[in-house]
């Protein structure tokens, strides 16, 4: 819970720092998804905390030394907020001054993300994809039908208690999805983009599944499909690069996608954002489903044992 608040706090901090995009992401991730996952994991393991802090002094020394080194390092740093710091005068001006001509996207973050450093973003998508696959490898269970039945029964009894909530959520979900789409395509103009949209989209699905039961949700969005979509996202992203390669440019050189470089950039960014969105959404869903699935599986087994 604390970490959720921490996430929200840092998000608002980012806003104060003029980093709206980052704030948006941190809000959805730090305060949303990761807290959710934490809770899930905690319920699956144990709440009690009877841990002993071993070797606290050693740890403290390490930490203090590291911290002192960092403070020492900051002494020569340019002052906070000063405009003539090296980072503001070397590479960045080009992004700020020229990207309108070169890319034509109002949100500078998006243009840097999608084009100048498209490869980083590509890496990012791959990272999240890796995490998805990793969680899948670790947690996926081969589902046995008799367990499913039990779980269903369990779920039904549970969910009848949340009738009002279910109705509210049912109404809300389409709006959330719509909002996700808006964020997805609005990335060019305001804060937003594929990643945030993906998370929001995933959040909608997760909400749904929390209230209506995992198996219900799985009936709507089944696992192979999400896996396929996750891969599709990466592929979409990658193929944008390949296409530009085939068109005679460098990898991720969107200029060649269209006759007009700016239009080409637009198209490229749009496509990769779509790829990011797809992958992120599906991976989030995969992760959540697997956590939840594992949990219910464990409960089912426990019940079966009793």
């Amino acid at each position, binding site marked *: 819970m604390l970490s959720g608040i921490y996430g929200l706090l840092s998000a608002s901090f980012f806003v104060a720092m003029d980093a709206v995009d980052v704030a948006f992401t941190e809000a959805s991730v730090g305060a949303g998804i990761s807290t959710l996952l934490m809770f899930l994991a905690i319920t699956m393991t144990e709440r009690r905390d009877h841990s*002993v802090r071993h070797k606290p002094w050693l740890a403290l020394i390490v930490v203090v030394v590291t911290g002192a080194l960092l403070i020492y390092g900051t*002494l020569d740093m340019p002052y906070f907020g000063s*405009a003539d710091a090296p980072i503001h005068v070397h590479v960045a001006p080009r992004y700020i001054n020229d990207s309108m001509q070169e890319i034509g996207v109002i949100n500078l*973050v998006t243009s840097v993300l999608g084009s100048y450093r498209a490869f980083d973003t590509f890496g990012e998508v791959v990272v999240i994809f890796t995490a998805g696959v990793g969680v899948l490898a670790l947690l996926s269970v081969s589902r046995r039908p008799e367990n499913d039945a039990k779980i269903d029964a369990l779920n039904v009894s549970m969910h009848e208690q949340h009738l009002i909530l279910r109705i509210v959520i049912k109404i809300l979900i389409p709006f959330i999805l719509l909002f996700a789409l808006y964020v997805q395509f609005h990335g060019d103009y305001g804060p937003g983009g594929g990643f945030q949209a993906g998370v929001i989209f995933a959040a909608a699905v997760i909400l749904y599944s929390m209230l209506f039961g995992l198996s219900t949700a799985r009936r709507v969005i089944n696992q192979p499909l999400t896996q396929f979509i996750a891969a599709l996202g990466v592929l979409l992203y990658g193929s944008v690069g390949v296409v530009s390669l085939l068109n005679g440019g460098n990898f991720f050189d969107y200029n060649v996608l269209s006759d007009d470089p700016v239009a080409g950039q637009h198209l490229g960014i749009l496509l990769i954002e779509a790829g990011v969105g797809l992958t992120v959404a599906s991976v989030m869903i995969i992760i959540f489903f697997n956590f939840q699935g594992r949990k219910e599986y464990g409960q089912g087994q426990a019940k079966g044992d009793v």
Partner: protein
Amino acid sequence: MFLGLYNYWIVVVLMMIGFYIVIAHGNLIKKLVGLTIFQTSVFIFYISMAKVNGGTAPIVGDGIEIYSNPLPHVLILTAIVVGIATTALGLALTVRIKEAYGSIEEEEIQKKDNSTC
């Protein structure tokens, strides 16, 4: 001079809190929480770098001359994703460890390991 750097120092303190939790705690989930704090504070550190006095969010608009540096924002977007990916994987591991060992306390696990081998 100190005023010019206070922001970084707060970040450092945050970082070290996270780092300490990672090292010193025996509970696997708490370790992960610590890790998240540690990472997030690094993000803040980057974002602080990007801030320019009097600047606004790097979205081009009319009449705005000074923008924050968009590059760190991009980097941190990526880093956040990396962070959540790591957390997810770590939690997944924790869940499995709980299943396999019946505990998520570092010392108990080590004890069990030693007794089996």
